[in-house]
């Protein structure tokens, strides 16, 4: 499908339009954070501790007197960045593993799938805590950990699609012409698998954002970087939540929900656009 056709179909899908609108909204917040945030998020104000929402501080302040609204705006950067980068790792690894396993079959397939199963089965949080304890809790490591936890689902989707494409005559025609397996995987399997990967990517990003928030909340990862999960971490550890200071927890929580929703809707819409598209068929019943 041409890019224009994709766009046309996508925009006629209500879910997709809403999802895309949310993503644009988030992108604007993250990119223009310095201009949108009214305060320096790190600026401490001892005179304005744990104040409820007011015209001066739309979302109120935290235990250090920092403006929560500004924190949430700035927090979008790390939250989204980790989401994207971790997903990039997952996509690359997942696609390579999926194509290799699906196309090669046999023992290679079995071995790769068992590795995939391992990562699917291990509880994410436990693994993350262990890795963080062994290595440092840097931002890079968090990205890698989440990436490692996310690639299996991509690998499975890619592998299934690879199995379908592998059976189509044009793949065998290529083999009959003398093409090597690598050529076929690159030229035939990969381009026909990518549309599904796009849809899967959006959902993976949603999951990565959520996982990052969860990990930072638990203390894995650098709590000096402002992110939604980090805000929630301090909201909890400072006792603010238990004390009932709701304005501390709801904004970052809501942003996580909105972000996940945005990516999920986009992902589902993309899936509908690309799926069932391998067999280029008639649009409606033939005449």
């Amino acid at each position, binding site marked *: *499908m041409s890019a224009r056709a994709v766009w046309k179909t996508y925009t006629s899908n209500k879910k997709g339009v809403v999802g895309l609108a949310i993503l644009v909204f988030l992108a604007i917040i993250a990119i223009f954070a310095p201009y949108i945030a009214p305060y320096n998020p790190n600026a401490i104000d001892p005179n304005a501790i744990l104040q409820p929402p007011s015209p001066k501080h739309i979302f109120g302040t935290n235990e250090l007197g920092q403006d929560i609204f500004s924190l949430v705006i700035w927090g979008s950067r790390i939250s989204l960045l980790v989401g994207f980068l971790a997903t990039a790792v997952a996509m690359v690894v997942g696609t390579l593993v999926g194509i290799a396993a699906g196309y090669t079959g046999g023992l290679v397939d079995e071995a790769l799938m068992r590795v995939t199963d391992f990562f699917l089965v291990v509880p994410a949080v436990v693994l993350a805590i262990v890795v963080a304890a062994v290595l440092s809790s840097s931002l890079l490591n968090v990205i890698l950990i989440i990436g490692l936890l996310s690639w299996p689902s991509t690998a499975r989707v890619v592998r299934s699609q690879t199995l379908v494409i592998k059976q*189509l*005559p*044009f793949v*065998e*025609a*290529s*083999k*009959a*012409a*003398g*093409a090597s397996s690598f*050529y076929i995987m690159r*030229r*035939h399997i990969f*381009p*026909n698998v990518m549309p599904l990967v796009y849809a899967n990517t959006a959902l993976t990003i949603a999951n990565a954002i959520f996982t990052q928030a969860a990990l930072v909340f638990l203390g894995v990862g650098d709590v000096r970087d402002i992110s939604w999960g980090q805000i929630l971490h301090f909201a909890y550890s400072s006792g603010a939540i238990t004390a009932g200071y709701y304005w501390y927890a709801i904004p970052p929580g809501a942003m996580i929900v909105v972000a996940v929703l945005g990516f999920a809707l986009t992902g589902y819409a993309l899936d509908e656009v690309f799926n069932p598209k*391998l*067999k*280029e*068929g008639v649009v409606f019943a033939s005449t």
Partner: protein
Amino acid sequence: MGEVLVEAKDLKKHFEVRRSPLDVILRRKSYIKAVDGIDLKIEKKQIVALVGESGSGKTTTGRLLIMLEKPTSGEIWFDGKRIDSASPKELRALRPRMQMIYQDPYGSLNPKLTVYQSVCEPLIVNKREHSKELVMEMLALAGLRPPERFLERYPYQLSGGQRQRVAIARAMILKPEFVVADEPVSMLDVSLRAEILGVLRQFNERLGVSFLLITHDLAVASQLAERIAVMYLGKIVEEGATRDVLSSPLHPYTQALVSVVPRIGEEKRKKLILQGEIPSARNIPSGCRFHPRCPYKKEVCARVEPELRRLNGVKVACHFAGELS
């Protein structure tokens, strides 16, 4: 008698089937005998049709002849050399000389590649010179005119017939000597079939390509092939010049197939419509494989498998060939 290009000698392909755990324990193996002893010769510049219902083994035979599958036993010869036990390196060198055309025009082309990219691929893969002119030459021979108009199109912009022509152009661009065409027109409208078959004939006459035309449709076989071999459950039951086999078929199966091919204006003719379906190749009937469905079956047919013998210029495997109306 021309020079033989492709030859199969007692070719067999048995697929092992996994059965229940009990069978595994008792070490009982089960096979699908898709191809069960075939001798076939295709000469240079010749078109031979291999005809049968689905389940007869004709597609598997085609794939074996160009070594897309390895035979279980038997010999395959190409241009005077045995190829059934060739090394992967030797096979790769042979690939450009033998190609395949598939049944499904919708699955034959990568939807992400343009016509030019698809047709050009065999040249690129074999590190040969590739150019727009070469591709256009093939497209024109396949009936896509003017060829320039089609180079940048994607499969979804083409009709079934057009896609099949592109697939043919792609198969021919390496100027192969032998092409297996597996049901090349069965998914196209009946009115298009003659034209596409005509394209194959063009390549046969102009480039000297030999074809094995695999089809279940005798009319299609008649349109294109000089010789015809009829397959049933993995074996050839009748073989000879198309004119001989189709105008006076000797084997009851061939007779039945010929009788049911639609003939305009002759709908009141006697049609031998066989009951039931071709049995699975897992449970091949004893004696003559066809006997359960044969209208003339006698006691000997269930016991003894008939050999392929010469009769009136054709080869036929029936105990009573020549005696049946």
